């Protein structure tokens, strides 16, 4: 398999001009294959979220390059990054981050509308995804009417709706109980195996970590372990 994502010499320093500089990431070099199911683990403050943000174009690296599917992400302008996030990357956040004023259906189809999908295609797409993720009975509900597990399933649905090549999930199970966390991992595994979507998620939950095909461990902004499992 080819390298789908190349992370080369990535550095991230917060407050670079101040006396107390925070070296969040130091010389990170990683290669991730298409269709990989990757977990980034490590203690709090190890740089997991920062790395995911840089890969997703949400944050700029201080140095180094991220090449996603042949495209240098680190050199892109905000407009191009927005296009990349809209069309090629799906995000799942720890705090679900659904749009509170839109119901489940509208949250899922929001990204499709951003891509210029017609209403008819949106309706069809939402129905399909909702059935697949078992949230078809929640479509009319608002985010605040859902449990944490349900909200995270909707967040997955929203991420999938964009038909991305890559899903980045920042501690997706952190706010969920073990049963909901297992269900969510089943979902992500299913998307990885059946849809071929590359998924990179961060976690420090051993139950979640053991399900990954590729494990990267960060500590103090450095890669301390990079293992692939068969």
């Amino acid at each position, binding site marked *: 398999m080819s390298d789908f994502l190349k992370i080369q010499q990535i550095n991230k320093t917060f407050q670079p001009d101040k006396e107390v500089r925070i070296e969040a990431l130091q010389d990170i070099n990683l290669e991730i294959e298409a269709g990989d199911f990757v977990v980034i683990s490590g203690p709090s403050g190890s740089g997991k979220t920062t790395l995911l*943000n840089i890969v*997703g174009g*949400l*944050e700029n690296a201080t140095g180094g390059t991220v090449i996603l599917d042949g495209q240098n992400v680190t050199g892109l302008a*905000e*407009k191009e990054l*927005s*296009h*990349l*996030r*809209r*069309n090629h*990357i799906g*995000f799942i*956040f720890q705090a679900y*981050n*659904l*749009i*509170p*004023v*839109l119901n489940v259906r*509208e949250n899922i189809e*929001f*990204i499709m*509308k*951003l891509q210029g999908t017609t209403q008819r295609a949106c309706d069809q797409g939402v129905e399909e995804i909702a059935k697949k993720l078992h949230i078809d009975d929640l479509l009319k509900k608002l985010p605040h009417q859902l449990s944490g597990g349900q909200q995270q399933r909707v967040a997955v649905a*929203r991420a999938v709706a*964009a038909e991305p090549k890559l899903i980045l999930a920042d501690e997706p199970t952190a706010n969920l109980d073990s049963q909901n966390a297992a269900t969510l991992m089943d979902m992500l595994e299913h998307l990885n195996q059946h849809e071929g979507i590359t998924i990179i998620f961060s976690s420090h939950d051993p139950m979640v970590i053991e399900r990954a095909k590729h494990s990267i461990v960060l500590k103090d902004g450095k890669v301390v372990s990079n293992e692939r499992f068969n």
Partner: protein
Amino acid sequence: MFKTATKIGITSLLRRRTRSALLILMIAVSLWGLLFIEGIYDGMTEQMIANAIRSDSGHISIFADGYRLNPDLSRWIENTIELDEFLNERQQIKSTVARLKQDGLVATAHYSRGIAILGIDLEREANHSHLEGYLRHGELNFGERQRGAIIGFKLAKKLKVAIGNKIILSAQNSAGEMASTALKVKGIIKTHNMAFDENAVFIAAAKARELLSMPTGISQIAISIANEGEIASLQQQLQEEFPNLTIKRWDELYPALQQSRVLMAGFKQVINIIIFSIAALGIFGVMLVSVLERMREFGIMLAIGTKFSQIGIIILVEASILGCAGFGLGALAGFSTLYYFKIYGLDLSVFSSALDEFGLDAITYAIIRPDYFFTALAAIILASVFSIIIPLRILKKTKPVDAINAI
């Protein structure tokens, strides 16, 4: 996307309904008040102009050459037959009236003062000026022997005369000699034209000719036309046909009234600036707080790939909903109020003495013009657009990841 933006806008406004309602109410009340002032002020201006046109100048007045500078009996319009023929052929002319004017003196047993004597054909004058609407006391009749006079209410007050009282008119006749006649006050009128209410004595044209020894000729012909848009072309035609006469439009005879219209246009601009400022400041305040409160929401949208321009549309839709709701409510209230005062008039009789000085009736009828509403709507839409510039700049400077982490 626009439907989604509208839904996000409406839902967000409903989530903050007290704040939104207060802003809508603030815009509506301001707009209502300003529309009311605009309509009433416009009504007053048009009333002053209408009174001047109706009581004196008509839309166009014709004078003998030089009469405007030296209004005496040596300058009169002689060839009235040709002029009458010309005017009768013009379809656009509603009515005409001929007057013989001379400055003179009116005296009673107690008081005397300088006035303008106007010899008129009462029937034609009534048809042209609708004098019956001006009559306050007595009747519009010079009597069988034409020894009656109609005077303005202010003059009557100064002379301390009432209906049936005697007055003496004196004036220089065409031979340059002083002539006098005794008349009885038959009617007292209130035209709201100060020149007439304070300084005019209307007498029968025949009586005026006798007093002034003027068997023929007239001083002024006032023309009223159906369509104000044709005033300039008729003036030009008249001037070409009768180059030896002075043809003046009402606005040339009453430049101060024309200035009032110009002033009204300026006043409307001021009103639109006030509407713009109120709406812009109000919407800006609400939208700024709204954007700061929803930084996380917008951060999520940006993170999942929403274009900044699409966020701009969402915020603009929200600001426009606030502005348009305020406009709708204010315009409805303003229209209803102005419509009421257009039909029933605004009774300002408590200020009648002050209004008289300006040539205004005690009851002012409001005017409703579509441009009040169109310009106010344009001002509010513009205000909505301007009010979101700073909130959008704040959002633009914020990175999506920082916005997501904002509390």
